[in-house]
């Protein structure tokens, strides 16, 4: 029986560990073979269709070692540990790029090796993390949009403010990104996402508490499923989820909030001591090819950052992957704020979630 209980304890540990067991990134291989016959690509899982990677390997004879990370922060930690070596090409989110570039972990791009650079949509260039486009090339953008099922919702939704409407009681789902959701309240109050005025953030927290009765679920993964199954009627979601939902149910309505759009950009950069920088430049150029790009974005389901690829995207997807006609650039990116502001953000977020549980 002692053995049995010992076993039970092991099982208990397994249960509590299950959540910790996420994907382990593969170790990158470095220094093998002649230079430029290899490319150590480091990004999230599933950023490229298999065929695109295979075609690059066939055309150039460069073998791709694809290693993955779950969080931008993990990537930064690994780059710091290797002093910007080991990897040849990294794709990560905007806010972390700022940290990478300011710590000297990225190298300047040699634009003469990227003839396709002119294809990039200028809306996504010149951002705060790289104002002169010296280090990064965007690859996909996300816009947080409201999606709703017009059959189940009585009101017309055209901005964040409408989400507070009492008729939406217990029928709203949001992603679990505290800066995005706190940001909705900030936008309704007419403030910036990145304000560091603690009083303003507190006010947004109070505004957010009023939204609690409408919240049914807060989660990052597969929120579109809840919208499609009728668990919720309105959702604030990431771009790839919006695309998936819209493809499954074309009747859903997608709203660019009138208060302004928050968006994020993913971008390529080459680490400071990348072992194979030439291969990295070749790859960046390869995926900027309009046809390759269109294929990638159809698959990735994020906003297309390649202007030349816009018209090549399958019409089924084009509307959700390209910016609407007459887009007025009324958008703001979420950036890292001071530690004090971040602390207030996490506190009001926790208060908000707790308030949602009280219904």
């Amino acid at each position, binding site marked *: *029986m*002692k053995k*049995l*209980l*010992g*076993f*039970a*304890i092991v*099982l*208990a540990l*397994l*249960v*509590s560990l*299950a*959540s910790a067991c996420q994907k382990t990134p593969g170790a990158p291989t470095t220094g093998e073979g002649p230079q430029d016959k290899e490319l150590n690509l480091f990004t999230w899982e599933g950023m490229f269709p298999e065929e695109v990677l295979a075609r690059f390997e066939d055309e150039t004879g460069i073998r791709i070692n694809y290693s993955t990370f779950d*969080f931008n*922060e993990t990537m*930064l*930690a690994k780059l710091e540990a290797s002093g910007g070596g080991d990897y040849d090409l990294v794709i990560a989110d905007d*806010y*972390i790029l*700022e*940290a990478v570039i300011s710590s000297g972990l990225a190298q300047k791009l040699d634009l003469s090796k990227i003839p396709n650079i002119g294809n990039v949509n200028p809306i996504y260039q010149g951002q705060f993390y790289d104002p002169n486009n010296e280090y990064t090339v965007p690859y996909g953008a996300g816009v947080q949009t409201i999606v709703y099922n017009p059959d189940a919702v009585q009101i017309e939704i055209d901005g964040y403010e409408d989400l507070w409407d009492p008729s939406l009681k*217990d029928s709203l*789902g949001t992603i*679990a*990104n*505290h800066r995005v959701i706190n940001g909705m309240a900030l936008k309704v109050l007419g403030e910036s996402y990145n304000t560091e005025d603690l009083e303003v953030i507190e006010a947004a927290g109070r505004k957010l508490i009023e939204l609690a009765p409408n*919240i*049914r*679920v*807060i*989660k990052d993964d597969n929120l579109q499923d*809840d919208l499609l*199954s*009728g*668990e919720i009627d309105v959702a604030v979601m990431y771009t790839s989820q919006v695309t998936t939902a819209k493809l499954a149910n074309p009747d859903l309505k997608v709203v660019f909030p009138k208060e302004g759009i928050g968006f994020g950009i993913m971008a390529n950069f080459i680490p400071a001591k990348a072992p194979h920088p030439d291969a990295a430049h070749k790859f960046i150029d390869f995926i900027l090819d309009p046809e390759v790009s269109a294929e990638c974005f159809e698959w990735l389901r994020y906003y297309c950052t390649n202007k030349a690829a816009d018209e090549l995207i399958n019409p089924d997807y084009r509307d959700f992957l390209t910016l609407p006609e007459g887009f007025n650039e009324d958008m703001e990116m979420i950036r*890292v704020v*001071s*530690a004090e502001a*971040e*602390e207030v*953000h*996490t*506190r009001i977020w*926790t*208060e908000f*979630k*707790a308030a*949602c*549980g009280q219904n």
Partner: protein
Amino acid sequence: MSAEIKAGPTEASDPGGVPQKRKAALRRFFDAATISVMPIYAFTLLFVVGPLVYMFILSFLKRAETWGVLREFTWSNYTNILKPVYLKTFYESLKLAFFTTFFVALVGYPFGYFMARLSATWKRRMMLLLMIPFWTSSLIRLYGWIIIFRANGTLDKILMGLGITQAPLKLLYTYSAVVVGMIYALVPFMIFAVYSSAEKLDWQLVEAARDLGATPWQAFITVSFRLTLPGLLSGVVLTFIPSMGLFFIADILGGNKVILVGNLIQEQLMKARNWPFAAALSVVLMILTSIMIALYRKVSGVKDLEGLV
């Protein structure tokens, strides 16, 4: 350990020269028993004590803006916990843990108790049946509950098919869904603990009580229950403590609206990137659970969990 104690008297009875003494000391040091214990000490120091010390130190540092920590001492992570919103997460965790443990005991105790009375073959079969679910990831099994609970899901279809309800119940993302998920995940530990204790029960004592005129219920309370109490209590510990930390059930089945300490720690670590605060929360949680175990020892008068040592 025992090797050192045994070596003591030989050394005392042999007041020989220094070299001999040193030899004895060397022999004692390289004693097979001592050496065989070394890896465990090393493992414990490296993987249990080390991380705990690291976490403790971390909890007194300041967060850096984008990523990592600054090497500056501060109490603020601990004073931060005293804010009502964070204290409330501790309250919520304890509340859910009490609820869960209560229901788990209600289901698991009779199960384990009667399982111990089965024939040897059936005991083995039951054991196998209890083990099989563990071959699948607990996360995947929780997704199974989503299919059951969601709007127009399995449960809704059955209830509406039978005409018991007219519209979807919207059970998913409620407190009850979280409680069901917790009970489901933890009930086996209660069963195993109670079973192990009931197995050792001398049934002749129950018979004796019956012979002496006790009703079945009296015999159960005065004999069986008393003797299986250590199993029940260790089951309580095995349920209560993990349920303080099972954050992903509240995430998946509760729609992120039930905030437990575990959720808060995970979020501070992964999303808010405030490692020191997460560390401080973990330290407090660890102290809380240690108090629980101390209480358990006091109440049960047992030094170790039933059947563990």
